């Protein structure tokens, strides 16, 4: 017996051998083995002595279930003790008596399969003879029952370990998927596919939109035809209106478990006959819905349902699904926060740059801006071009040290202070002094660099009056191909209460250009980046190009010189006197 048990991998596989061993060695004719299944005893297998046929009795035994106390198996189950019947035909608690009598079965005994946890099943044996009770036999059978009980318990423990390993592997895989990407829509679709068929025949993910509507992100099903059917049903009968399942989970934020969906229970949830029809053809047998939660809010829900597999969900499945819901909820929440942050950054960034450049008669103006990183932080570079009087224009470019909200605030302050100052003061050097005072008063650690120029049309040429505060001097590109730095060094803005700025004046003739840029363009580290010399060479090779083409060429060269992507923001303003 021990050998039989140790080789078997399940009670179903061991049952015929157990019954055969009991029947043959003891000379009994029919055996049956029962296990407890959802509150009743159900027959796992029937054994008959070779050559014997008891079709009626076998059929009723395989078909019938016994609650505790009823019949021979129920009696053993409720008492936990073996039982002996000399002749089943004369026993008043043996519902199968007439079939047994018709096929000549009389004596019977049964013993419990038990473990420390109680009765797990029952083994019956029948004889064609009327049998006197045999205490020794019953005692031996009780020992065998305990052995079988231990076997079942052991197998169940192993099954449960394997199941928990599968659950753990599933969660680990889902967690890795969710953590790997900020594109939660695509990721959740992958998670839904991961759930089928291991966890469900049917897995769907829905998210709750800010306006309260439910959007289905993903459906995975073992049978694609049913996906189409379910999608049709969903359009016709919105889940928002449903009193159970998805709609309820989204309202309450609590998971719902329906271990067994009885066919007639569908009638109570169906809106009308057609709905009922679709529900029935989906063939759902068991289902659970878990919320996607993060920071105490319900962001959506995952649906798991079984149909063809006949899987029945229990508390362990639900706790796995709940855990998945939490993981997925956090992933959705993170992705949304990130999107929101990127959106704010883009909006703020746009507010810090002029929406369009002014048209200046006789002067071409081009500007480029490229924020470093993934676009979720506000960059610190800024530029502006605006009219300051009749035939006079201001061109400025600047760079705030740092990134993020603090830097954005300083960028806004700098840009607006410069614009305001330029309305009442025409000398660039004085305008920088005003900004320096504003920043020093502001008492932050942030500082900025600025190159500020005033352009005045003087017939065909343009006079440039320029001051720099800690900023790379703009590069002059002559129509004849000469390049030189324009402007002289000045102190950083916002650091010293006694700043020092120098004024430079130069005249641009038709075809001459002036390139303003931030140090993101010439971020030259050992081995990477565009050096200032390389930038000069590039400009020389582009002599005669329009302002637009020059700005393009510089931007492209700066980006290409940093193969890993620009580490700093890049801003470029190019002005050129038309020929």
């Amino acid at each position, binding site marked *: 017996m021990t050998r039989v048990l140790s080789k078997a991998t399940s009670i179903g596989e061991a049952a015929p051998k157990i019954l055969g061993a009991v029947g043959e060695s003891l000379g009994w004719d029919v055996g049956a083995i029962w296990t407890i299944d959802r509150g009743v005893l159900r027959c796992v297998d029937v054994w008959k002595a070779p050559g014997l046929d008891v079709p009626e009795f076998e059929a009723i035994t395989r078909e019938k279930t016994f609650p505790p106390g009823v019949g021979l198996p129920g009696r053993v189950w409720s008492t936990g003790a073996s039982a002996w019947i000399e002749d089943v035909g004369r026993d008043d608690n043996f519902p199968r008596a007439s079939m047994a009598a018709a096929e000549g079965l009389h004596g019977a005994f049964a013993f419990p399969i038990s473990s420390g946890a109680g009765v797990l099943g029952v083994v019956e044996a029948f004889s064609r003879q009327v049998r006197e009770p045999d205490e020794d036999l019953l005692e031996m059978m009780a020992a065998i029952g305990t052995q079988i009980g231990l076997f079942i318990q052991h197998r169940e423990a192993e099954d449960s370990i394997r199941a928990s390993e599968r659950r753990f592997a599933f969660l680990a895989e889902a967690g890795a998927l969710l953590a790997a990407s900020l594109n939660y829509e695509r990721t959740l679709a992958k998670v839904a596919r991961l759930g089928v068929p291991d966890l469900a025949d049917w897995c769907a993910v829905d998210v709750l939109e800010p306006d309260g509507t439910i959007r289905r992100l993903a459906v995975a099903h073992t049978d694609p035809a049913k996906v189409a059917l379910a999608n049709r049903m969903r359009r016709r009968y919105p889940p928002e209106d449903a009193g159970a399942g998805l709609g309820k989970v989204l309202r309450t934020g609590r998971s719902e478990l329906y271990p067994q969906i009885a066919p007639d229970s569908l009638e109570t949830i169906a809106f009308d006959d057609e709905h009922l029809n679709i529900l029935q053809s989906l063939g759902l047998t068991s289902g659970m819905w878990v919320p996607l939660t993060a920071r105490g809010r319900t962001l959506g829900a995952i649906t798991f349902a079984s149909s063809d597999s006949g899987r029945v969900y229990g508390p362990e499945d639900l706790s796995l699904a709940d855990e998945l819901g939490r993981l997925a909820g956090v992933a959705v929440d993170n992705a949304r926060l990130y999107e929101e942050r990127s959106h704010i950054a883009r909006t703020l960034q746009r507010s810090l740059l002029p929406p369009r450049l002014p048209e200046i008669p006789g002067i071409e103006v081009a500007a480029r801006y490229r924020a470093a990183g993934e676009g979720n932080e506000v960059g610190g570079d800024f530029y502006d071009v605006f009219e300051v009087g009749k035939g006079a224009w201001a061109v400025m470019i600047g760079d705030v040290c*740092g990134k993020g909200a603090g830097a954005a605030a300083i960028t806004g302050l700098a840009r607006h202070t410069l614009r305001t100052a330029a309305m009442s003061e025409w000398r660039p050097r004085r305008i920088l002094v005003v900004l320096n005072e504003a920043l020093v008063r502001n008492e932050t650690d942030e500082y900025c660099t600025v190159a500020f120029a005033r352009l005045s049309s003087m017939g065909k040429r343009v006079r440039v009056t320029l001051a720099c505060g800690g900023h790379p*001097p703009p590069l002059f590109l002559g129509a004849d191909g000469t390049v030189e730095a324009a402007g002289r*060094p000045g*102190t*950083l803005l916002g650091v010293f209460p006694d700043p*020092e700025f120098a004024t430079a004046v130069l005249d641009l003739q038709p075809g001459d250009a002036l390139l303003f840029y931030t140090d993101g363009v010439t*971020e030259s*580290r*050992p081995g990477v980046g565009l050096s200032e010399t390389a930038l000069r060479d590039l400009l020389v090779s582009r002599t005669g190009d329009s302002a637009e083409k020059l700005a393009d060429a510089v931007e492209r060269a700066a980006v290409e010189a940093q193969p890993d992507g620009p*580490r700093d923001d890049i801003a470029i303003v190019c002005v050129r006197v038309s020929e």
Partner: protein
Amino acid sequence: MTDFQVSVSETDGVVSLSLTGELDLATAGRLESELRRVEGGGPSVLIIDLRQLRFIDSTGLRLIIGADARAREDGRRMAIVPGPVSVHKVFELALLDKRLEFIEDPSTLEGA
């Protein structure tokens, strides 16, 4: 990852920080905590040696300006040994070569 190192040496209240590699947004945090730690010891002279520094960005510049401002407040002398041309240019562009103290030979201070 950006390569950056700070090495600290001290002789008779003169603390010297030697910076090697690239000082930028990614590495500034390390210099900042090292500066705060060293300043906590109340040195009479702080030397920042940039001779081995290959790159500095505005974040790095801000740290050095901040350290200089604290040195003035605390009545401590702070001197910088200039780095290679590409690094020193960043200081010149902002007129910091005139606003901060630069010394060519740190041994003149270390022996003092």
